[in-house]
């Protein structure tokens, strides 16, 4: 009886801790912030080996660092490697799950994971990982077309792709706006994924400039 209570308390504490770390993620800005959070999520993943969320967040933080280091190709690879490791572990945990929303969240992050690899050197890594990342985003959009993070990433692709190859800044604006309105309808706290506001706003700010 007592052991059961202790275990319950432990789980409760762990959940609380995860929520607290996710709250910190909402305020993260620099590579250093994300790096510290990646370590925290990684150790959370080590203690809660069956919960996909810490793995998801560890993958996300590392992939986000990859995006932030776009202009510094030499540094991207170790983060992309970690992002892939955690991403794959999260994927294994969600295997067989019927929750389309969760799967869409993960595929959106897997898009970022593989896209970050492109930044190592687009000339050499672009072909393989560009195609692979897009497949994940398409899958995510299929599962949950209204997911604000999927919408934001679609907007990101439209914004940064040259026009000739399907880029469309207007469409990017529409998608980012849509992502924002969906985010406003969502609770912006808790441990479930809710990031994307600052990122969508950044695209809109760039568009308006």
């Amino acid at each position, binding site marked *: 009886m007592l052991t059961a209570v202790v275990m319950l308390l432990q789980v409760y504490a762990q959940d609380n801790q995860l929520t607290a770390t996710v709250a910190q993620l909402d305020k993260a800005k620099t590579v250093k912030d994300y790096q510290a959070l990646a370590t925290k999520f990684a150790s959370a993943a080590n203690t809660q080996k069956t919960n996909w969320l810490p793995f998801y967040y560890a993958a996300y933080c590392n992939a986000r660092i990859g995006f932030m280091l776009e*202009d510094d190709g030499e540094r991207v*690879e170790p*983060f992309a490697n970690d992002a892939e490791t955690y991403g794959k572990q999260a994927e294994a945990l969600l295997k067989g799950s019927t929750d389309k929303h969760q799967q869409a969240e993960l595929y959106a992050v897997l898009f970022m994971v593989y896209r970050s690899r492109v930044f190592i050197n687009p*000339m050499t890594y672009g*072909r393989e990982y560009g195609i692979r990342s897009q497949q994940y985003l398409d899958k995510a959009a299929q599962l949950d077309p209204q997911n604000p993070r999927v919408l934001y990433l679609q907007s990101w692709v439209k914004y940064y792709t040259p026009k000739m190859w*399907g880029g469309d800044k207007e469409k990017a604006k529409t998608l980012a706006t849509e992502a924002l309105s969906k985010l406003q309808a969502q609770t912006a706290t808790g441990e479930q994924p809710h990031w994307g506001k600052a990122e969508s706003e950044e695209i809109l700010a760039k568009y308006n400039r």
Partner: protein
Amino acid sequence: MKPIVLLLSIWSLCLSATAQISISGQVSSQQGLAIAGASVSIKGATAGATTDSSGHFHFTTKLTGKQVLRASSIGYKKQEQDILIADSGITVDIILPANHQTLGEVVISAGAFEASDKAKGASLTPMDAMTVAGNGGDIANSLRSLPGAQQVGEREGLFVRGGTSEEAKQFVDGTLLKNPNYSSVPGVLQPARINPFLFKGVLFSTGGYSAQYGQAMSSALILETMDLPDESSASLHLFPTSSGLGFQKLANNKQSSYGLNVNYGNQAAYNSIVKQRPDYFLGPEYGNAEANYRVKTSKTGMLKIYVNASLSNIGLRNPDVDSMALKSAFKLNSSNVYTNISYREMLGKDWKLQAGAAYSYNQDKIGLQLQDGAHQPVYLAGAPYAWKNRDMNTTTNFAQGRVVLSRLFSRNQALHIGAEHFYAEDRYHSGDSLYPLTDQLTAGFVEGDIYLANNLMARVGVRGEHSTLLKKSTVAPRASLAYRFGDGGQLNLAYGIFYQKPENQFLYQQRDLRFSKATHYLVNYTKKAGNRLLRLEAYYKRYAELPKTIPFVNSNGSGDAKGIELFWRDKRSIKNLDYWISYTYLDTKRDYLNYPYALQPYYATPHTASVAVKRYFENINLNVNLVYNFATGRPYYDIRSPQGNEHTQVFDHGTTRAYHNINLSGAYLFNLFKGKWKHPGFGGIGFGVNNILGTRQIFNYQYSYNGMNKIPVIPTAARSFYLGVFMSFGIDRTEDFINDNL
């Protein structure tokens, strides 16, 4: 009995007081992966161990009580953990957090430019090298915009750091590529025989290279071919001087592929529009067909077969240097077959086998003729005219076999042991005379890449060679060191001795020659960060036993070369723009051929610089490449022997004007049949202009026999142009272009 029991128990007490206590455990990463080779020790004590391949460690200590256990491994942050050592021993598991500040393993890089499909940031990729404007599809030509190479416009190949183009050799998957370019024509740069898109890795070594390669005194261009293609595809190109088509078929099980490419070009039509200085009476005509088969022989095994057959036919007339009323005509019919077979396989976890074989056949039929104004042959007796009517025929059969066995260790350390054998059979006919040469050259080498300290890597090797033709053996030591600073900068040092057989032109006349020899010393600093790359290199080279032709053919030549080189690449400062700058300072003198004493050779100049710019114009879908090459003037000499064949004298000399050259090339890309066809394609319009400004370029001067007249060696036309279309189906390469520019 009692005292004995007491004694025994005291004995056991003493034992326990000095007993070794066992400490064991496992080191793993945050991802739960075992870390092999991590060092674990007790702080302030010598006790410690290194983890095995499963991350486990075990050691014993006399220490007890509260201690600090520390663990470290490359790529991870150091970790310290408080432990309490119990008498019964303890088990401790340690988790090391990843350290993303570390920059992977140290890479030996003195003297080398690597363009790889694994390149990060501002490091070169094969595509970067192949898109240098004006290279004409020749990798060696595009590498002339990197430091170390000279701008020698009248001849193909690489002239590196005071060396001739014969001293720079190309290797494909380990074996020698005997004839990388179409056979030489005096004064006219000849194109490459092999499609540059075959290669996924290019290592251009300008000195101090590995003991795995030999018979190249100045430079080794080490090329690595692609494995299986991603998808099946077909391609087509139509340009005024060359058209071709080809396909690559990937088997459904993705375990093998085959492909065929055919190219043909005749420049006669182009030359009728863009006037050429030489009067071409044949071609220039080039044709080649290449086929490949690649198969995965196992999970780690790969077999690749490549065959290339090519021919060229060229005839041209130029004013004769000895008599302005006459023309000297040159005609070449050349055919070549090249085959390369390479195989690699892992033998267990730690051993790697690489084997290769190459065969090449080459025939050059050259006809020289002195002609009058109506292009009729003129036969005049006596020097210098007698030898201006001649037919020469050279055939070469060349075969090579090579095996390298490597033992791989952690952190990219390795020990390589290899052997190779070269068979060369040359038959040179001139008039009624035949000059046969057959050589069996055997080489063996051992080389190790090892860490001497955490950030200090060494490559030490030795290569031995024996030639049956020269009846001589050589032993060539090579060594390279690389030290990495905390900020990612790397300092490299290299030393090596490089031997090369004299060229056939000397051996036809005199077989009792020695291997030419070059000793390289070089120091290099390289730093890569933030999509920028800086590379500085200084070197000194000493040449010995170079071929001399006076008073008779001998091996008594010598020389030296020293220089400083700079390379800077920046992909970051301006969005969508990538540029590099290279500068080469060269101070070299040689006493060779018919030089009376050490002179700066005719192909060398002190200052050479290049700026290469690549820009993608997103809105109009246009890629533009621009390169500016500059070189100070080259020396030229009138060297003759006043009395017959004895000693020579420099009767006249000078320096050519400085060389300026701007080449522009570009491609406008578009989609083909998008959405309408099962296999979408992409197409492009490619264009280029060499020497846009039409700057007058003089490469050298040719003197008449009596020294009374000299004529400049200049390009065949002030400018050259191309415009054409290319298409590719099957592989949707639009992603490449998108990703290149995101």
